[in-house]
Protein backbone atom coordinates (compact mmCIF):
# COMPACT_ATOMS: atom_id res chain seq x y z
CA UNK A 1 0.00 0.00 0.00
CA UNK A 2 1.29 3.44 -0.90
CA UNK A 3 1.28 6.45 1.43
CA UNK A 4 -1.41 8.04 -0.70
CA UNK A 5 -3.67 5.02 -0.39
CA UNK A 6 -3.05 4.81 3.34
CA UNK A 7 -3.84 8.46 3.88
CA UNK A 8 -6.99 8.20 1.81
CA UNK A 9 -8.26 5.54 4.20
CA UNK A 10 -6.89 7.23 7.29
CA UNK A 11 -10.13 8.58 8.68
CA UNK A 12 -12.08 5.49 7.85
CA UNK A 13 -9.58 3.58 9.95
CA UNK A 14 -9.81 6.12 12.78
CA UNK A 15 -13.58 6.02 12.64
CA UNK A 16 -13.52 2.24 12.43
CA UNK A 17 -15.38 2.39 9.15
CA UNK A 18 -12.75 0.70 6.98
CA UNK A 19 -13.17 -2.93 6.05
CA UNK A 20 -11.07 -5.39 8.01
CA UNK A 21 -8.83 -5.99 5.04
CA UNK A 22 -8.29 -2.26 4.42
CA UNK A 23 -7.72 -1.59 8.11
CA UNK A 24 -5.14 -4.33 8.26
CA UNK A 25 -3.32 -3.05 5.16
CA UNK A 26 -3.30 0.53 6.46
CA UNK A 27 -1.98 -0.53 9.83
CA UNK A 28 0.76 -2.56 8.19
CA UNK A 29 1.71 0.48 6.18
CA UNK A 30 1.71 2.72 9.23
CA UNK A 31 4.09 0.43 11.04
CA UNK A 32 6.49 0.72 8.19
CA UNK A 33 6.08 4.46 7.47
CA UNK A 34 6.98 6.92 10.18
CA UNK A 35 5.51 9.96 8.38
CA UNK A 36 2.17 8.33 7.87
CA UNK A 37 2.19 7.04 11.44
CA UNK A 38 2.76 10.56 12.74
CA UNK A 39 -0.06 11.86 10.60
CA UNK A 40 -2.30 9.03 11.77
CA UNK A 41 -1.54 9.71 15.40
CA UNK A 42 -2.18 13.39 14.93
CA UNK A 43 -5.50 12.93 13.16
CA UNK A 44 -6.63 10.39 15.74
CA UNK A 45 -5.66 12.84 18.44
CA UNK A 46 -7.52 15.61 16.65
CA UNK A 47 -10.61 13.46 16.39
CA UNK A 48 -10.51 12.58 20.08
CA UNK A 49 -9.78 16.18 20.98
CA UNK A 50 -12.81 17.55 19.15
CA UNK A 51 -15.01 14.82 20.54
CA UNK A 52 -13.89 15.53 24.06
CA UNK A 53 -14.01 19.34 23.93
CA UNK A 54 -17.24 19.49 22.01
CA UNK A 55 -19.06 17.22 24.38
CA UNK A 56 -18.88 19.10 27.65
CA UNK A 57 -21.78 18.20 29.91
CA UNK A 58 -24.86 20.33 29.61
CA UNK A 59 -27.64 21.14 32.04
CA UNK A 60 -30.76 19.43 30.86
CA UNK A 61 -32.49 18.73 34.16
CA UNK A 62 -35.00 21.53 33.72
CA UNK A 63 -35.62 20.61 30.12
CA UNK A 64 -36.20 17.02 31.16
CA UNK A 65 -38.79 18.05 33.72
CA UNK A 66 -40.48 20.30 31.22
CA UNK A 67 -40.69 17.47 28.69
CA UNK A 68 -41.96 15.02 31.30
CA UNK A 69 -44.70 17.37 32.39
CA UNK A 70 -45.63 17.98 28.75
CA UNK A 71 -45.84 14.23 28.31
CA UNK A 72 -48.12 14.01 31.30
CA UNK A 73 -50.35 16.72 29.85
CA UNK A 74 -50.15 15.06 26.50
CA UNK A 75 -51.09 11.71 28.02
CA UNK A 76 -54.70 12.72 27.64
CA UNK A 77 -54.76 15.72 25.35
CA UNK A 78 -53.47 14.42 22.03
CA UNK A 79 -55.93 11.59 22.36
CA UNK A 80 -58.43 14.25 21.55
CA UNK A 81 -61.57 15.28 23.30
CA UNK A 82 -63.58 12.46 21.81
CA UNK A 83 -61.27 9.63 22.84
CA UNK A 84 -60.78 11.08 26.27
CA UNK A 85 -64.46 11.47 27.00
CA UNK A 86 -65.72 8.68 24.77
CA UNK A 87 -67.23 6.85 27.68
CA UNK A 88 -69.01 9.92 28.92
CA UNK A 89 -70.12 10.89 25.46
CA UNK A 90 -71.72 7.48 25.01
CA UNK A 91 -73.34 7.77 28.40
CA UNK A 92 -74.60 11.23 27.54
CA UNK A 93 -75.89 10.02 24.18
CA UNK A 94 -77.60 7.11 25.90
CA UNK A 95 -79.11 9.42 28.47
CA UNK A 96 -80.28 11.73 25.70
CA UNK A 97 -81.96 8.87 23.85
CA UNK A 98 -83.67 7.74 27.05
CA UNK A 99 -84.66 11.31 27.78
CA UNK A 100 -86.11 11.85 24.31
CA UNK A 101 -87.96 8.55 24.46
CA UNK A 102 -89.30 9.48 27.87
CA UNK A 103 -90.26 12.94 26.70
CA UNK A 104 -92.04 11.49 23.68
CA UNK A 105 -93.85 8.98 25.84
CA UNK A 106 -94.87 11.65 28.30
CA UNK A 107 -95.94 13.99 25.56
CA UNK A 108 -97.95 11.20 23.89
CA UNK A 109 -99.44 10.30 27.19
CA UNK A 110 -100.29 13.93 27.77
CA UNK A 111 -101.78 14.28 24.30
CA UNK A 112 -103.63 11.08 24.78
CA UNK A 113 -104.96 12.08 28.14
CA UNK A 114 -105.83 15.59 27.08
CA UNK A 115 -107.29 15.14 23.62
CA UNK A 116 -107.93 11.49 22.94
CA UNK A 117 -109.10 10.22 26.25
CA UNK A 118 -112.27 12.37 26.46
CA UNK A 119 -113.54 10.87 23.19
CA UNK A 120 -112.41 7.43 24.15
CA UNK A 121 -114.14 7.74 27.52
CA UNK A 122 -117.34 8.95 25.95
CA UNK A 123 -117.22 6.02 23.51
CA UNK A 124 -116.65 3.46 26.27
CA UNK A 125 -119.22 5.03 28.60
CA UNK A 126 -121.89 4.87 25.95
CA UNK A 127 -120.78 1.38 25.10
CA UNK A 128 -121.28 0.39 28.72
CA UNK A 129 -124.59 2.10 29.05
CA UNK A 130 -125.87 1.66 25.54
CA UNK A 131 -129.37 2.85 25.26
CA UNK A 132 -131.58 1.17 22.69
CA UNK A 133 -132.01 3.09 19.47
CA UNK A 134 -135.71 3.79 20.12
CA UNK A 135 -134.59 6.97 21.79
CA UNK A 136 -136.53 8.84 19.17
CA UNK A 137 -136.25 12.22 20.77
CA UNK A 138 -132.49 12.18 20.72
CA UNK A 139 -132.26 10.65 17.28
CA UNK A 140 -134.47 13.35 15.78
CA UNK A 141 -132.45 16.09 17.48
CA UNK A 142 -129.20 14.58 16.20
CA UNK A 143 -130.60 14.25 12.67
CA UNK A 144 -131.70 17.87 12.72
CA UNK A 145 -128.35 18.96 14.06
CA UNK A 146 -126.45 17.07 11.36
CA UNK A 147 -128.56 18.26 8.48
CA UNK A 148 -128.73 21.87 9.58
CA UNK A 149 -125.21 22.38 10.92
CA UNK A 150 -123.03 20.18 8.80
CA UNK A 151 -125.29 19.14 5.96
CA UNK A 152 -124.94 15.47 6.65
CA UNK A 153 -127.76 13.03 6.26
CA UNK A 154 -127.72 10.39 8.91
CA UNK A 155 -127.93 6.81 7.75
CA UNK A 156 -128.78 4.24 10.30
CA UNK A 157 -127.33 1.13 8.73
CA UNK A 158 -124.23 1.02 6.61
CA UNK A 159 -121.46 -1.47 5.82
CA UNK A 160 -122.95 -3.81 8.37
CA UNK A 161 -122.84 -1.32 11.20
CA UNK A 162 -126.13 -0.49 12.81
CA UNK A 163 -126.84 2.76 14.55
CA UNK A 164 -127.62 1.81 18.08
CA UNK A 165 -127.68 5.11 19.89
CA UNK A 166 -127.44 8.83 19.24
CA UNK A 167 -127.20 11.89 21.44
CA UNK A 168 -125.07 14.90 22.32
CA UNK A 169 -121.87 15.07 24.29
CA UNK A 170 -119.83 17.98 25.46
CA UNK A 171 -116.16 17.15 25.05
CA UNK A 172 -113.31 19.55 25.68
CA UNK A 173 -115.84 22.36 25.97
CA UNK A 174 -117.40 21.70 22.58
CA UNK A 175 -120.65 20.17 21.57
CA UNK A 176 -120.61 16.97 19.53
CA UNK A 177 -123.29 14.80 18.09
CA UNK A 178 -122.45 11.29 19.23
CA UNK A 179 -123.51 8.37 17.04
CA UNK A 180 -122.95 4.90 18.33
CA UNK A 181 -122.67 2.01 15.87
CA UNK A 182 -122.43 -1.70 16.52
CA UNK A 183 -121.45 -4.65 14.34
CA UNK A 184 -120.89 -8.02 15.97
CA UNK A 185 -118.44 -7.30 18.77
CA UNK A 186 -117.10 -4.04 17.30
CA UNK A 187 -118.31 -0.70 18.48
CA UNK A 188 -117.71 2.63 16.82
CA UNK A 189 -118.50 6.09 18.08
CA UNK A 190 -118.71 8.87 15.57
CA UNK A 191 -118.52 12.38 16.92
CA UNK A 192 -119.56 15.22 14.70
CA UNK A 193 -118.60 18.69 15.79
CA UNK A 194 -118.74 22.19 14.52
CA UNK A 195 -116.73 24.23 13.74
CA UNK A 196 -114.02 22.32 11.94
CA UNK A 197 -111.12 24.35 13.29
CA UNK A 198 -110.78 21.92 16.13
CA UNK A 199 -107.21 20.83 16.27
CA UNK A 200 -106.24 17.56 17.87
CA UNK A 201 -102.51 17.22 18.57
CA UNK A 202 -100.62 13.95 18.55
CA UNK A 203 -102.27 12.66 15.40
CA UNK A 204 -100.39 11.67 12.31
CA UNK A 205 -101.65 12.43 8.87
CA UNK A 206 -102.60 9.71 6.42
CA UNK A 207 -103.74 10.75 3.00
CA UNK A 208 -106.45 8.83 1.26
CA UNK A 209 -107.32 9.56 -2.38
CA UNK A 210 -110.24 11.80 -1.56
CA UNK A 211 -109.59 12.78 2.07
CA UNK A 212 -107.00 13.77 4.55
CA UNK A 213 -107.33 11.67 7.63
CA UNK A 214 -105.51 12.02 10.91
CA UNK A 215 -105.05 8.99 13.07
CA UNK A 216 -103.91 8.17 16.52
CA UNK A 217 -103.17 4.64 17.52
CA UNK A 218 -102.25 3.75 21.04
CA UNK A 219 -102.52 0.91 23.45
CA UNK A 220 -105.96 2.05 24.58
CA UNK A 221 -107.84 2.80 21.37
CA UNK A 222 -107.82 3.75 17.75
CA UNK A 223 -109.13 7.11 16.80
CA UNK A 224 -109.26 9.01 13.52
CA UNK A 225 -110.60 12.34 12.49
CA UNK A 226 -111.24 14.12 9.25
CA UNK A 227 -112.90 17.25 8.06
CA UNK A 228 -116.18 17.31 6.23
CA UNK A 229 -118.21 20.33 5.18
CA UNK A 230 -116.88 22.65 7.82
CA UNK A 231 -117.33 19.95 10.42
CA UNK A 232 -114.91 17.75 12.24
CA UNK A 233 -115.77 14.09 12.34
CA UNK A 234 -114.08 11.86 14.86
CA UNK A 235 -114.26 8.09 14.83
CA UNK A 236 -113.31 6.00 17.83
CA UNK A 237 -113.22 2.27 18.30
CA UNK A 238 -111.88 -0.07 20.89
CA UNK A 239 -111.54 -2.80 18.27
CA UNK A 240 -107.85 -3.11 17.42
CA UNK A 241 -108.57 -5.22 14.34
CA UNK A 242 -110.89 -2.74 12.73
CA UNK A 243 -109.67 -0.98 9.60
CA UNK A 244 -109.54 2.69 10.46
CA UNK A 245 -110.75 3.68 7.03
CA UNK A 246 -113.85 1.54 7.48
CA UNK A 247 -115.18 4.20 9.81
CA UNK A 248 -115.26 6.78 7.07
CA UNK A 249 -118.29 5.52 5.14
CA UNK A 250 -120.36 5.72 8.32
CA UNK A 251 -120.94 9.38 7.55
Amino acid sequence: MTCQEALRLLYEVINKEASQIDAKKVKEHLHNCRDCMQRYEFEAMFQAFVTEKGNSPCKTEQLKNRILSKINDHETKPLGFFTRYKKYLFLAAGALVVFIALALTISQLYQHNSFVYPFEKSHLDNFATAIPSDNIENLTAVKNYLSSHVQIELRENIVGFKLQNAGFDEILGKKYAHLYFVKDNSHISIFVGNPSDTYLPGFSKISLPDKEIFEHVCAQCRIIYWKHNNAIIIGVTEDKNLEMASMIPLL
Partner: protein
Amino acid sequence: MENRNSGNDKKKEKFEAEALVHLDSLYRTALRMTRNEGEAEDLVQETLLKAYRFWDKFEEGSNCRAWLFKIMTNIFINNYRAKSRMPQVIDLEDVDDDFLFGQLSALGPSDNPEQHFFAKVFDDDVKKAVEELPEDFRMVVVLSFLEGFSYQEIAEIAGLQIGTVKSRLHRGRKLLQKALWDYAVKNGFIKEAAR
Protein backbone atom coordinates in the same frame (compact mmCIF):
# COMPACT_ATOMS: atom_id res chain seq x y z
CA MET B 1 -59.64 3.45 32.54
CA GLU B 2 -57.41 1.60 34.98
CA ASN B 3 -55.96 -0.48 32.18
CA ARG B 4 -55.27 2.51 30.06
CA ASN B 5 -53.51 4.27 32.88
CA SER B 6 -51.29 1.36 33.68
CA GLY B 7 -50.61 0.96 29.96
CA ASN B 8 -49.62 4.59 29.79
CA ASP B 9 -47.45 4.29 32.87
CA LYS B 10 -45.64 1.42 31.25
CA LYS B 11 -45.24 3.34 28.04
CA LYS B 12 -43.92 6.34 29.93
CA GLU B 13 -41.50 4.21 31.92
CA LYS B 14 -40.17 2.60 28.78
CA PHE B 15 -39.91 5.95 27.06
CA GLU B 16 -37.97 7.41 29.95
CA ALA B 17 -35.59 4.47 30.06
CA GLU B 18 -34.99 4.19 26.34
CA ALA B 19 -35.51 7.64 24.85
CA LEU B 20 -35.15 10.26 27.54
CA VAL B 21 -31.70 8.95 28.43
CA HIS B 22 -30.51 10.48 25.17
CA LEU B 23 -31.68 13.93 26.19
CA ASP B 24 -28.17 15.29 26.81
CA SER B 25 -26.89 14.04 23.54
CA LEU B 26 -29.91 15.42 21.66
CA TYR B 27 -29.64 18.76 23.38
CA ARG B 28 -25.92 19.04 22.67
CA THR B 29 -26.51 18.45 19.02
CA ALA B 30 -29.51 20.76 18.94
CA LEU B 31 -27.36 23.46 20.50
CA ARG B 32 -24.63 23.03 17.90
CA MET B 33 -27.22 23.07 15.12
CA THR B 34 -29.41 25.97 16.24
CA ARG B 35 -26.63 27.89 18.04
CA ASN B 36 -29.27 29.16 20.41
CA GLU B 37 -30.21 27.70 23.79
CA GLY B 38 -33.91 28.56 23.58
CA GLU B 39 -34.28 27.14 20.11
CA ALA B 40 -32.25 24.09 21.06
CA GLU B 41 -34.57 23.39 23.99
CA ASP B 42 -37.63 23.84 21.82
CA LEU B 43 -36.17 21.58 19.15
CA VAL B 44 -35.37 18.84 21.65
CA GLN B 45 -38.75 19.15 23.31
CA GLU B 46 -40.54 18.95 19.99
CA THR B 47 -38.41 15.96 19.05
CA LEU B 48 -39.11 14.02 22.22
CA LEU B 49 -42.82 14.81 22.27
CA LYS B 50 -43.08 13.66 18.68
CA ALA B 51 -41.11 10.54 19.56
CA TYR B 52 -43.47 9.89 22.44
CA ARG B 53 -46.47 10.31 20.20
CA PHE B 54 -45.02 7.83 17.72
CA TRP B 55 -43.50 5.57 20.34
CA ASP B 56 -45.53 2.60 19.16
CA LYS B 57 -44.01 3.08 15.70
CA PHE B 58 -40.53 2.64 17.08
CA GLU B 59 -39.34 -0.86 16.41
CA GLU B 60 -38.16 -2.41 19.58
CA GLY B 61 -34.57 -3.55 19.43
CA SER B 62 -33.63 -1.06 16.74
CA ASN B 63 -31.41 1.90 17.45
CA CYS B 64 -33.47 4.29 19.52
CA ARG B 65 -30.83 6.99 19.60
CA ALA B 66 -30.49 7.04 15.82
CA TRP B 67 -34.29 7.09 15.54
CA LEU B 68 -34.48 10.12 17.84
CA PHE B 69 -31.76 11.92 15.91
CA LYS B 70 -33.56 11.22 12.67
CA ILE B 71 -36.72 12.79 14.07
CA MET B 72 -34.77 15.77 15.33
CA THR B 73 -32.89 16.24 12.08
CA ASN B 74 -36.15 16.24 10.16
CA ILE B 75 -37.72 18.80 12.45
CA PHE B 76 -34.59 20.90 12.28
CA ILE B 77 -34.43 20.81 8.50
CA ASN B 78 -38.13 21.60 8.16
CA ASN B 79 -38.64 24.19 10.88
CA TYR B 80 -35.41 25.58 12.18
CA ARG B 81 -33.10 25.93 9.28
CA ALA B 82 -32.64 29.54 8.28
CA LYS B 83 -35.49 30.31 5.91
CA SER B 84 -33.47 32.31 3.46
CA ARG B 85 -30.74 29.81 3.17
CA MET B 86 -28.09 30.73 0.69
CA PRO B 87 -26.41 28.01 -1.30
CA GLN B 88 -23.30 27.15 0.58
CA VAL B 89 -20.26 27.89 -1.49
CA ILE B 90 -17.14 26.93 0.30
CA ASP B 91 -13.80 27.28 -1.27
CA LEU B 92 -11.55 24.72 0.25
CA GLU B 93 -9.26 24.28 -2.67
CA ASP B 94 -6.44 26.12 -1.00
CA VAL B 95 -6.67 24.08 2.18
CA ASP B 96 -4.64 20.89 2.13
CA ASP B 97 -5.90 17.68 3.65
CA ASP B 98 -3.08 17.80 6.11
CA PHE B 99 -3.38 21.51 6.69
CA LEU B 100 -3.21 21.52 10.46
CA PHE B 101 -0.68 18.74 10.69
CA GLY B 102 1.47 20.58 8.16
CA GLN B 103 1.24 23.86 10.06
CA LEU B 104 2.17 22.19 13.29
CA SER B 105 4.99 20.18 11.78
CA ALA B 106 6.39 23.35 10.33
CA LEU B 107 6.77 24.77 13.81
CA GLY B 108 9.70 22.48 14.33
CA PRO B 109 10.36 18.92 15.29
CA SER B 110 12.00 19.74 18.59
CA ASP B 111 8.98 20.00 20.83
CA ASN B 112 5.66 18.25 20.76
CA PRO B 113 3.70 20.90 18.85
CA GLU B 114 0.44 18.90 18.76
CA GLN B 115 0.28 18.67 22.50
CA HIS B 116 1.00 22.37 22.75
CA PHE B 117 -1.61 23.17 20.19
CA PHE B 118 -4.34 21.12 21.76
CA ALA B 119 -3.54 22.58 25.12
CA LYS B 120 -3.90 26.07 23.67
CA VAL B 121 -7.33 25.59 22.15
CA PHE B 122 -10.14 26.37 24.53
CA ASP B 123 -13.23 24.26 24.88
CA ASP B 124 -15.31 27.16 23.69
CA ASP B 125 -13.14 27.52 20.61
CA VAL B 126 -13.99 24.00 19.58
CA LYS B 127 -17.68 24.59 20.08
CA LYS B 128 -17.47 27.87 18.23
CA ALA B 129 -15.54 26.31 15.38
CA VAL B 130 -18.16 23.59 15.07
CA GLU B 131 -21.00 26.07 15.23
CA GLU B 132 -19.47 28.22 12.56
CA LEU B 133 -19.26 25.40 10.08
CA PRO B 134 -21.75 25.74 7.26
CA GLU B 135 -24.89 23.89 8.18
CA ASP B 136 -24.55 20.89 5.86
CA PHE B 137 -21.04 20.18 7.11
CA ARG B 138 -21.93 21.01 10.67
CA MET B 139 -24.61 18.37 10.79
CA VAL B 140 -22.40 15.49 9.70
CA VAL B 141 -19.46 16.73 11.80
CA VAL B 142 -21.63 16.89 14.92
CA LEU B 143 -23.17 13.48 14.26
CA SER B 144 -19.78 11.90 13.63
CA PHE B 145 -17.32 13.74 15.86
CA LEU B 146 -19.53 14.58 18.80
CA GLU B 147 -22.11 11.83 18.75
CA GLY B 148 -20.04 9.01 17.31
CA PHE B 149 -22.60 7.79 14.79
CA SER B 150 -21.33 5.55 12.03
CA TYR B 151 -21.34 6.77 8.43
CA GLN B 152 -24.29 4.51 7.70
CA GLU B 153 -26.26 5.86 10.65
CA ILE B 154 -25.50 9.43 9.65
CA ALA B 155 -26.65 8.68 6.12
CA GLU B 156 -29.97 7.44 7.51
CA ILE B 157 -30.39 10.20 10.05
CA ALA B 158 -29.65 13.03 7.63
CA GLY B 159 -31.16 11.34 4.59
CA LEU B 160 -27.92 11.43 2.62
CA GLN B 161 -25.96 9.04 0.44
CA ILE B 162 -23.08 7.46 2.31
CA GLY B 163 -20.67 9.00 -0.21
CA THR B 164 -22.08 12.44 0.57
CA VAL B 165 -21.59 11.80 4.27
CA LYS B 166 -17.95 10.91 3.69
CA SER B 167 -17.21 13.90 1.50
CA ARG B 168 -18.97 16.31 3.83
CA LEU B 169 -17.10 14.89 6.77
CA HIS B 170 -13.86 15.23 4.91
CA ARG B 171 -14.47 18.85 4.03
CA GLY B 172 -15.99 19.63 7.40
CA ARG B 173 -12.89 18.27 9.09
CA LYS B 174 -10.65 20.49 6.97
CA LEU B 175 -12.76 23.54 7.79
CA LEU B 176 -12.65 22.67 11.45
CA GLN B 177 -8.89 22.29 11.47
CA LYS B 178 -8.46 25.58 9.65
CA ALA B 179 -10.77 27.36 12.08
CA LEU B 180 -9.03 25.92 15.12
CA TRP B 181 -5.67 26.90 13.74
CA ASP B 182 -6.92 30.44 13.25
CA TYR B 183 -8.19 30.55 16.83
CA ALA B 184 -4.90 29.22 18.10
CA VAL B 185 -3.07 31.90 16.21
CA LYS B 186 -5.41 34.50 17.65
CA ASN B 187 -4.91 33.08 21.12
CA GLY B 188 -1.19 33.60 20.80
CA PHE B 189 -0.14 30.06 20.22
CA ILE B 190 2.24 30.99 17.42
CA LYS B 191 4.02 33.60 19.44
CA GLU B 192 4.47 31.25 22.32
CA ALA B 193 5.62 28.44 20.09
CA ALA B 194 8.06 30.69 18.32
CA ARG B 195 9.61 31.88 21.53
